[in-house]
């Protein structure tokens, strides 16, 4: 502060005094100036001490952080059971819930996600992942570990899939979709291409030659023969009854009522 400032301060003190004590104020002017100087010196000293202490503390912290001893101490502290117990207690206690509530209240996750999504960080991470062939490696690992098979088996065995399929099949949207597919030209073209393809006929040949199909056809043939034979049996027995009635009428014999029971079945 300059001399102008000091004169203003003294003038202000004089103005603040009552009119009768102006002489006393003039007499105390040197003391007042000395007091003011002392105050300024004290402030400068405190500031210098504070700056020096700050610099010293910073230097000390830097020295501590760079020292091997501090690193060893930190390692010991981190590796000590005390830290482990402290962390366990902290995790078991209400701290986690309180942190979670605060994170939700202050929308920490949303802010972090917003920052990541709007910035270039995500793009950079994706590019680096792509450059490192991370997707291919993940796919290889998934395929090698049989995760796909396990997942497919789990899905196929689950009742949820059946419910989902049933719901999808029962829905009117599926019906409309099927109608549109059936009426589309795409289906006709697909069928035409299928019929023209040689692979289809090879597949048909394979299926027709399979033992299951030949067995089924054989069973069908036997079933048809049984059906025909059954028809012949029924008609022949009706013809028997008619012929016998006619013969008995011609011979003027009483119609045969219930036939006597036959012999017991063949023991073999």
């Amino acid at each position, binding site marked *: 502060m300059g001399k102008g400032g000091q004169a203003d301060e003294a003038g202000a003190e004089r103005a603040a005094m009552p009119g009768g004590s102006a002489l006393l104020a003039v007499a105390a002017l040197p003391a007042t100036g000395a007091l003011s100087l002392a105050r300024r010196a004290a402030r400068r000293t405190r500031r210098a001490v504070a700056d020096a202490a700050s610099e010293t503390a910073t230097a000390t912290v830097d020295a501590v952080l760079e020292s091997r001893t501090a690193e060893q101490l930190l390692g010991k502290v981190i590796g000590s059971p005390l830290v482990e117990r402290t962390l366990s207690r902290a995790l078991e206690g209400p701290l986690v819930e309180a942190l979670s509530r605060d994170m939700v209240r202050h929308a920490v996750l949303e802010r972090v996600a917003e920052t990541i999504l709007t910035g270039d960080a995500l793009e950079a991470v994706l590019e680096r992942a792509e450059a490192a062939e991370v997707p291919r490696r993940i796919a290889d690992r998934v395929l090698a570990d049989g995760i796909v098979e396990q997942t497919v088996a789990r899905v196929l065995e689950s009742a949820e899939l059946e419910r989902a399929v049933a719901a999808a099949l029962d829905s009117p949207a599926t019906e409309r979709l099927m109608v549109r597919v059936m009426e589309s030209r795409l289906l006709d073209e697909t069928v035409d291409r299928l019929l023209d393809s040689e692979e289809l006929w090879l597949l048909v040949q394979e299926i027709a030659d399979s033992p299951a199909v030949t067995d089924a056809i054989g069973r069908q043939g036997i079933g048809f023969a049984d059906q025909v*034979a059954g028809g*012949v*049996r029924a008609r*022949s*027995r009706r*013809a*028997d*009854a008619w*012929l*016998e009635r006619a*013969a*008995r009428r011609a*011979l003027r*014999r009483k119609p*045969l009522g219930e*036939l*006597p*029971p*036959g*012999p*017991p*079945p*063949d*023991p*073999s």
Partner: protein
Amino acid sequence: MSRSPVPARLQTQPSAPATTQVYEGLVTRGIAFAVDAALINLAALIVSVSVGLALSVLDPSNNLETAALAVAGVAYVVWTIAYFVTFWSTTGQTPGNRLLQIRVCRARDGEALRPRKSLLRLGAMVLCALPLFAGFLPILVNSRRRGLHDMIAGSVVVSAPVEAR
């Protein structure tokens, strides 16, 4: 001790299941016989055609042809006899009988005929056919639907439905 009017083996056993067998009539048996005749002749035809083709290539003399015809005739008769006797004596069902689900069995106990009785039945069938098939007419009026050949051989023809698989 008076003799029971029903043979012992035909008496119903209390624990035995009730029989549902019935005697089969002329038409059903005739169809079964026609199927058997078709099978016999089909087999004979295949064999005779094969042998005839072989002989046509070998070009035998007339005497050999005559002998082959005689052998073929005898073989046909033997084959026919063997066909019926074998089936009647074993399962009681020829293929034609099986198709029509009927069975030839002994009248007294329901078992299959002995070979001698089967042979007798076949011979009696031939005799029944000689007088314009008159020997089969008793089937129409007999209470057990037995023809003359059945009476001679002591046989009956009953239904034999195949059990459901």
